[in-house]
């Protein structure tokens, strides 16, 4: 009763807000925010329920099933909260743009479609919602005209390719097992042969890999995420990619089941190790490419590709700690990546640019956004006391203890690369000297500050008390058949070295207070203005005293030749090849009616000739 009401409210709210927007702007804004918040409350009330409902629409005799379990609930709460926060952010971001009715409609439809995906209990409804999400995302990515149109085109072509692979897999499952209900597929598929399982894994793997931007399939992500409007970039990076993660979780742990997945073998060329290897490479290469970027949102987009590698590595590795780490990292990544995209969006809104070479010094002008970005950076790096630390710690620990030294090495080097590009982001935007042209930048409006503050508080809360989400994740893990973890409010206790965040928190707090007292015991300091900086005896030149361009210049020169985006060039190569083939075809199908009439007449003449000569009919 409740699950379909959730979906009806979500979709209906979207359409109603569009219609309301035709009459009044403020009414539509309030209604959109109200609907998103109502969805959050609704999903929160559904905690702990486990529901499965079937609807028959006379669709090939297949029932469409809606299902709610712990996994769906966890994803649903993330989707709805992030959707609500980004809608609140859009209130000021989209204030004076055109086609705002369309924007809010699409935001709410994307939200609703993602809720539909996680609540779907059979593959047909999953596919329907997946497609609704894909094309509504495409419409939103191409919202700003210009380069966004090309970015959207790249995205939709790759996404449709993935959907076609999904369709192939789904149809083959239907032919073999005569059902598409997920809970019925699970026991049935364990009887299939190894080759068939590999085929299913590949077909679905391509589909979810494209959505989750695993390395060969990531080419759409940097363009799409940097060209979309900022609150939607937050949703894209935070949640939309993770629908691929949800797909992988369904595929590997629900449909295939733990025994079959672990029984697939762990040799060097097995699916498991190839997926882990792809995850590890996805961590390293995009992290280094992110260091070379000069556009703030593009840097964050490449960072998303890198962090998605951690999630895939965690999920594919197959132990309970790794799964917990992967799912917790999904949750943390949604929080901090959305926070960073919203912060960069606020800066773009006020300063008018997101080019890292020309910003600087905005920490004093936009302090709330600065602190939010700082917390986001710390979570991205994985500083202890933020949530990112716990999820990365879980992944590292299981990689080390299971003896996969090289995967652990890739994951750890990824963290150091993350430190480099996140420092570049925060230095070039918020620290350093303030350029003259940005001297009149004002603070971000309240409706932009609110999501930033809420997300920062959430990150810190789940970092100090990780037991709150870890309890839910533990329930998910046990529902897949893993052994339960020993979760306490402060961390995980186990025999080979416990993680006790409360120890670390108090240690840092008390030591910090001691150091602060030591600091205050020194002679008082004089606060100076920004221009009074060391310049070898000269007065600091205005606007020329900030080091931003090519921030990691020595490293660029070393690693740039190794970091060409080969997959992008391959995809463009394929696209141009197909276009030239179509160009050859154009010689025949010229679009000129005269040619077509000539073809028809020639063909009729040929038929008459054949009839007269050999009289076949």
């Amino acid at each position: 009763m409740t699950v379909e009401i959730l979906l009806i409210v979500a979709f209906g709210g979207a359409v109603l807000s569009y219609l309301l927007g035709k009459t009044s702007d403020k009414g539509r804004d309030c209604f959109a925010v109200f609907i998103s918040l109502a969805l959050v409350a609704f999903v929160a009330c559904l905690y702990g329920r486990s529901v499965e409902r079937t609807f028959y629409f006379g669709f090939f005799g297949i029932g469409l099933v809606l299902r709610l379990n712990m996994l769906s609930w966890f994803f649903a709460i993330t989707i709805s909260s992030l959707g609500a926060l980004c809608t609140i952010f859009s209130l000021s971001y989209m204030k004076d743009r055109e086609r705002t009715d369309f924007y809010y409609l699409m935001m709410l439809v994307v939200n609703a479609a993602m809720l539909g995906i996680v609540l779907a209990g059979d593959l047909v409804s999953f596919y329907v919602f997946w497609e609704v999400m894909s094309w509504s995302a495409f419409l939103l990515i191409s919202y700003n005209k210009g380069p966004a149109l090309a970015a959207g085109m790249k995205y939709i072509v790759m996404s449709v390719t993935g959907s076609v692979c999904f369709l192939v897999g789904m149809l083959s499952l239907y032919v073999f097992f005569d059902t598409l209900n997920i809970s019925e597929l699970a026991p049935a598929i364990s009887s299939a042969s190894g080759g068939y399982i590999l085929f299913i894994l590949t077909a679905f793997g391509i589909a979810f890999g494209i959505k989750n931007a695993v390395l060969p399939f990531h080419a759409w992500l940097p363009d799409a995420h940097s060209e979309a409007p900022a609150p939607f970039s937050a949703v894209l990076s935070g949640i939309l990619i993770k629908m691929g993660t949800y797909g992988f979780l369904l595929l590997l742990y629900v449909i295939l089941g733990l025994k079959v997945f672990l029984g697939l073998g762990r040799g060097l060329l097995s699916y498991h190790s190839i997926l882990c290897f792809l995850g590890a490479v996805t961590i390293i290469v995009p992290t280094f490419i992110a260091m070379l970027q000069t556009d703030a949102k593009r840097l964050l987009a490449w960072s998303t590709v890198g962090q998605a590698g951690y999630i895939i590595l965690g999920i594919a590795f197959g132990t309970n700690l790794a799964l917990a780490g992967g799912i917790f990292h999904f949750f943390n990544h949604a929080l901090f990546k959305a926070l960073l995209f919203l912060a960069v969006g606020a800066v773009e809104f006020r300063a008018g640019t997101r080019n890292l070479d020309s910003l600087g010094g905005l920490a004093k002008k936009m302090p709330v956004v600065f602190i939010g970005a700082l917390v986001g950076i710390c979570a991205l790096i994985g500083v202890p006391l933020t949530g990112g630390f716990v999820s990365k710690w879980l992944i590292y620990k299981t990689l080390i203890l299971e003896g996969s030294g090289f995967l652990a090495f890739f994951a750890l080097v990824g963290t150091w690369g993350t430190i480099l590009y996140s420092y570049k982001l925060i230095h070039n935007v918020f620290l350093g000297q303030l350029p003259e042209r940005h001297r009149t930048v004002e603070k971000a409006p309240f409706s932009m500050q609110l999501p930033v503050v809420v997300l920062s508080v959430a990150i810190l809360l789940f970092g100090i008390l990780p037991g709150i989400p870890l309890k839910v994740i533990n329930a998910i893990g046990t529902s897949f058949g893993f052994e339960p973890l020993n979760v306490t409010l402060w961390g995980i206790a186990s025999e080979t070295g416990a993680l006790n965040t409360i120890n670390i928190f108090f240690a840092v707090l008390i030591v910090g207070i001691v150091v602060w007292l030591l600091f205050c015991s020194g002679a008082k300091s004089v606060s100076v203005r920004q221009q009074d900086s060391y310049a070898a005896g000269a007065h600091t030149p205005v606007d020329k005293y900030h080091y931003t361009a090519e921030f990691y210049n020595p490293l660029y020169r070393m690693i740039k030749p190794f970091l060409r985006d080969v997959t992008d060039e391959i995809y463009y190569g394929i696209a141009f090849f197909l276009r030239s083939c179509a160009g050859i075809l154009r010689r025949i199908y010229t679009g000129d009616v005269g040619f077509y009439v000539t073809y028809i007449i020639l063909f009729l003449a040929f038929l008459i000739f054949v009839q007269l000569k050999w009289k076949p009919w």
Partner: protein
Amino acid sequence: MDRNQITKWLKAPAKMANKYSLHAIYFCTGCGIIEVPPVITARWDAERFGIIPAATPRQANLFLITGYVSVKTLRAIIRTYEQMPEPKYTVGFGSCPINGGMYWDSYNTIKHLDKYIPIDGWIAGCMPRPEAIFIAVTHLWTLIEKDMANGYIRYKDNYESYRSNQEMALGKLEWPPLYPASDEHRGGE
């Protein structure tokens, strides 16, 4: 050197520390700087006395104004001096800062540096040998011990007269006045 007398340390740690840890800013103001590399290298080792060169004025507390001061250099000297944190000590090195020295009739040099920057002590010579520098350092220690090395306090108290002298020599200064009002916030925006 009374560096090792514990009772003196306990009675006046600030004074003792200021004496035995003089970091000189490595700003080569004029030709006199040629005598400084021998002082800080192996033959006449200044590090025994606790003197090492510091990279920026923020980290330094001793300013050696070595050699003649041209008008262009005076700007940099004033800026560097103002960027040093207190307590700070300046030493005029060579005859030129004292009274113009060899360039007593040049149109381009400053004859009496004391009008623009407070100087705690002078070392006569053209150039002073390293031994003279060490004797000067011991004299500076005596001054610090007796609380007489208070050039920075003189600067703060008589800032208007120093600033008007500076403006007469250099024209319009690009930095705002250092000490109009409170010590908390220096300069304006």
